[in-house]
């Protein structure tokens, strides 16, 4: 049910992925409604071979759909009373992705990118990327939604203006503030040194990622879903979602389309140590538009363009569009004990049961 199913990458790394979320409650929960974004997308450089979602207790109702952003989402409703809810997603994914490099990306001054998005008119990339040349049209995933009416009146309309419009709409949307990304003066001020006049957008992406990696400290538990970029800049510590939001905000503030990406990063054990089970993590990074290259993904937490150690779940305006799991529960009790474990291991090794 996904869109432009990519041909399976001929080469690449294949992973077994297990993501388990466990809620334990002191009081019985009569009903749990949930919605997941836990199934990796199919992309030109990523192929999801199999994906299952296991929910305990067994849900009375499940339904899969493709969301507004093209992500694969699953609804479930558990109607048996329970004190423990376990949501386990298992996938096998092949990733054949080479990290973008600053030198390999088209050189376009950031002001020109911003102007092109603002005006809706194309511009010539000064250096052609390896693959498809940018033709001034950005293909938007919204246009590929299965619910979209197709046919003579659909997005496939020969009228170029219509197709063009769709591309621009997605780019414009990626400029807007969103629930977790406010466009504030604090962020503008922080980002300003990176946006020197005429600087190429690829360089800026690398610079912002590098600055976040070096100027801010990763500390788990130092923020909550409600932490703003202003608070983050004041405390200088945060987690990957915070860093992604900060970079998205910096780009949008300067008229550059940016999205929030959700997924995983394969972690390596310290040299000489065995990898711990469940020690991988949900991860988040940034997807920014580079004319001629499309959406380019950068991980500010680790100061790098993403490669074949990253698995993409999906993307949205910010965290609120793609939390791996959200839900509503009915209970007299309050509080819960939440455990998350993620295993991303080469296929064939033994992941979490």
């Amino acid at each position, binding site marked *: 049910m996904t869109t432009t199913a990519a041909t399976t990458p001929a080469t690449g790394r294949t992973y077994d992925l297990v993501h388990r979320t466990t*809620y334990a409650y002191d009081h019985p*929960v*009569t*009903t749990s*409604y*949930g919605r997941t974004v836990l199934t990796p997308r199919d992309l030109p450089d990523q192929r999801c071979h199999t994906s299952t979602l296991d929910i305990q207790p067994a849900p009375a*109702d499940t*339904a899969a*759909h493709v*969301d*507004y952003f093209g992500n694969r989402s699953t609804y479930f*409703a558990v*109607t048996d009373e329970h004190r423990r809810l376990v949501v386990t997603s298992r996938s096998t994914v092949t990733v054949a992705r080479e990290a973008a490099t600053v030198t390999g990306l088209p050189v376009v001054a950031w002001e020109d990118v911003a102007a092109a998005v603002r005006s*809706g008119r194309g511009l010539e990339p000064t250096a052609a990327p390896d693959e498809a040349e940018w033709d001034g049209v950005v293909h938007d995933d919204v246009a590929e*939604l299965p*619910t*979209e*009416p197709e046919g003579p*009146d*659909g997005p496939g309309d020969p009228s170029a*203006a*219509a197709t063009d*419009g769709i591309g*621009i*709409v997605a780019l*414009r*949307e990626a*400029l*807007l503030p969103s629930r977790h990304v406010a466009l504030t003066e604090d962020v503008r001020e922080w980002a300003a040194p990176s946006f020197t006049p005429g600087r190429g957008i690829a360089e800026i992406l690398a610079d912002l990622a590098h600055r976040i990696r070096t100027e801010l400290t990763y500390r*788990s*538990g130092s*923020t*909550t*879903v409600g932490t703003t970029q202003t608070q983050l800049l004041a405390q200088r510590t945060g987690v*990957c979602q915070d860093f992604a939001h900060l970079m998205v905000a910096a780009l949008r503030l300067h008229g550059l389309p940016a999205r929030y990406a959700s997924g995983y990063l394969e972690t390596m054990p310290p040299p000489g140590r065995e990898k711990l*089970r*469940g*020690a*991988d*993590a*949900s991860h988040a990074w940034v997807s920014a538009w580079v004319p001629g290259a499309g959406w380019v993904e950068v991980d500010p937490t680790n100061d790098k363009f993403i490669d074949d150690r990253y698995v993409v779940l999906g993307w949205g305006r910010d965290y609120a569009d793609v*939390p*791996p799991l*959200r*839900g*509503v*529960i*009915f*209970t*007299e*009790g*309050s*509080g*819960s*004990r*939440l*455990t*998350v*474990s*993620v295993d991303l291991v080469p296929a064939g090794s033994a992941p979490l049961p």
Partner: protein
Amino acid sequence: MTDLLSSVRAPAPDAPAPASPDEAGADRRPDWSWLPDTADAPTEADLARYRDATDRLLADHGVTYGGTPPVTADGAPTAGVAEPEPHSWRLDPVPVIVDEHEWSVLERALVQRTELLDAVLQDVYGPRRLLGDALLPPELVLAHPGYLRAVHGLRLPGAHELVLTATDVTRDASGAWTVVADRTQAPSGAGYAMEDRRVVAQVLAGVYRQASIQRIGPFFHALRLALAQVAPPGTESPRIVLLTAGPQSETAFDQAYLSSMLGLPLVEGSDLVVREGRVWMRGLDELEPVDVVLRRVDADFCDPLELRSDSRLGVPGLVRALRAGTVSVVNPLGSSVLENRALHAYLPRLARTVLGTDLALRSPETFWCGDPVALRHVLAHLDELVLAPTYRGLRSGTVHGWTLSAAERAELAARIAADPLSWVGQEPVATAGAGAGAGAGAGTAAEAVRRPGHPPAPTAAVLRTFAVARRGSYQVMSGGLARVFLDDADERPAGSDAAPDAGPRAYAKDVWVLSSEPDAVRDPWLHAEQPAQRVLTGISPRTAENMFWMGRYAERAGDKVRVLRAVVDRWDDYHRSPRSAGGRALAALLAAVGADEPASWRTEGTGTDLRALLLDRARPGSVASSVRRLAEASAAVRDQLSNDTWLPLASLDRALADERRLVAARDRLDAARQVSPRTGPAETVGMRAVLDRMLEALLAVAGIGAESMVRDLGWRFLDGGRRLERAQFLVDTLAATLTTQRSEDVDSLVLESLLIEHESVITYRRRNQAGATVATVLDLLLLDRTNPRSLGYQLDRLREDLAGVPVPVGPAGHVRSPETRDRLLQDVADLLTELDTATVAAAVTEDGRRDRLAEVLDSMRWRLRAVGDEIARVHFVHPAPSRSLDDAWGAENTHAPDADDAPGTDPSAAAAAEDGTRGADAVADDDRGPA
């Protein structure tokens, strides 16, 4: 008064031309020149009477505006002037008159506009071909909070997305209609429009009969058809509900009234549940499928799973059901994106592109600040424009630029510049006939002129029109809801955002569209194609609970009134002679009613205490508190009740309000004379009359229950509540009075009062010529199953009521089994059967206690209380409180496995705790919190 909206606006012949807006305001007279015979025009004196009659009818019908039921204000309004209550609906009976031809032009324009909006809505949630700088800037849609991505691509069956819309129009200085707001989400006011018509038709019966005006009834018929037609394909006879935000909603009356008029169950989010991919209504014992939801809940509150996670008004999974196509929500979630006022600037272009015609209805010149050119214009002309946010809920409302100081303007300019996408500037509407407008004069016109019997001078008026999808196009209500604003502080014409009434500074008018053919529109009830609609037969546990408590509070109020009446009589006779038999009987009765027995009756304020038992709403068990709870419970089940119910409820309020006013006036008088608050002798003066008045109204409530209601499930709970309450009242009062033996002369007075309280004194006298004894009184009040005031009778009826109520199925002893309920009732019945009244009456201990009677009554008492709890447990099952799953934000960055034991944060603990109070109420027998 002259109408700002009427077509016919000839000045009254004897009135000089107004010299200034103020004067115009002071001397507005209604124009009756359109009447076939102007000799029939009401005089000024008639109008004053009509206005009074209107206020009274609205109160009698329980018409309210605001989130709470009508409650008379505490304290005292100024003597003589009956200020309208803050929550009553205000209506001027003089209608707005619109000429037939003019209306037909407006009608066509409204249809065109609604078709255009519908097309835009379909596009922005579908192919989005209109989005583009040339036509409709993408940000105008994409940045609006009403644009809900969760429902992108979903469609209603049929040709339209918009089913029911409202358009607010006003007249500009040239007299042309101008649109000030589109209401496309869940428009309110159609119920008020119908109620206004009913009231005005009654008050102005003479004129109404003479006038040939178009009916608004057909609109509601069309609405029923339209709702049935958008049901999911394959639904033979759709089940339709009206989803309300509950009694706390500002337009709760409008919602309940509409549901009752359309015959749709009024449901709250918690009455609905999503299972197996579709929406169901919770019944008492099973779920019933729901096919169409007419919603009055804002879209983002409708599904906490997919939309606002903090909403407790919605139905988790609703969007899932929409995706499955098993339910239709009207208007669709996401339609409030059209309420963005910035759209006004782009509709003319869109009309030419989409419809190929020019837009017929204009709007005030609008500048959307998301456009850099428009932003510059707005910032440069702040002092001339009306500044408004593009959506409701932004902290600030609409602002008149010209009313701001330089500093305020600078502050506003900064806010707009920081968030230009969320602001529009609009040219003010120079309203026809009103002093309000841009610049000078706007402030002074706000000085409303008040004369007795005259509404203050209006400064602006808005007509809310309604349209409903019909046969591939739209049908416009032939009339509407006019609102007249008494000052423009809130700038309603440009900012008529939320509700159809701005509160006390506005009032409503009916709108009469003249018709050249009498009754040109056929009457739907006589001829109509009736929509095939399946009726939802069950009632929700919430409705059952409200009916039950309505019965209990009605009975509780009546019981207390009777007790007070009996005690006040004894008080008047005996409070001066505390040592007499009468005095001692009075002491016993006061103790039984919970009033303090004064140390010295001549000087202390026991009387005040009796009055507090009548008037003090804060005092549990007072008449006023029961009346209030009765009103609350009734308002929540308006769709179940006869329209006549509101008449006695209004009388109850009125009686209490009058008495409060009298007491307050007297207290003021005392204060002025510097005498101490009245005590003793005078204290109960006048109470008897009030109590009689209230009893009359409560008897009417009981009569409606007995004679005007179908014996359905709702009635069974209503009656059951009354029976249980009366049973408890009997046992409580007997225990409080008869378990102590007093001297014969004292006891005979106590017994007499007791019989009076229980409406059995006449029967008793007839049967017991010799005089009263405890045993024979017990016979009549406990055992006599033919006495509708006896305990035996209450038990029979309660068991009969409950026998007809379905219970949740399950194995014996399962969690909602009625076994305990029925066993307790059987126990009480057995106690009665075994009761030997002569023996228990005679069994007196040395210290003068009838201990065996006390024991039996106590056994009955706790069992009856437990029956109440059991009924709640079995039938009034509330879903547990809901909250969001704790967010995995922190946990997912925790690499170390030892994070497993980290306790989850619980942002919603406070909310859950609040909701959790319901559990406590379920067992508190005495009273309950608002359900």
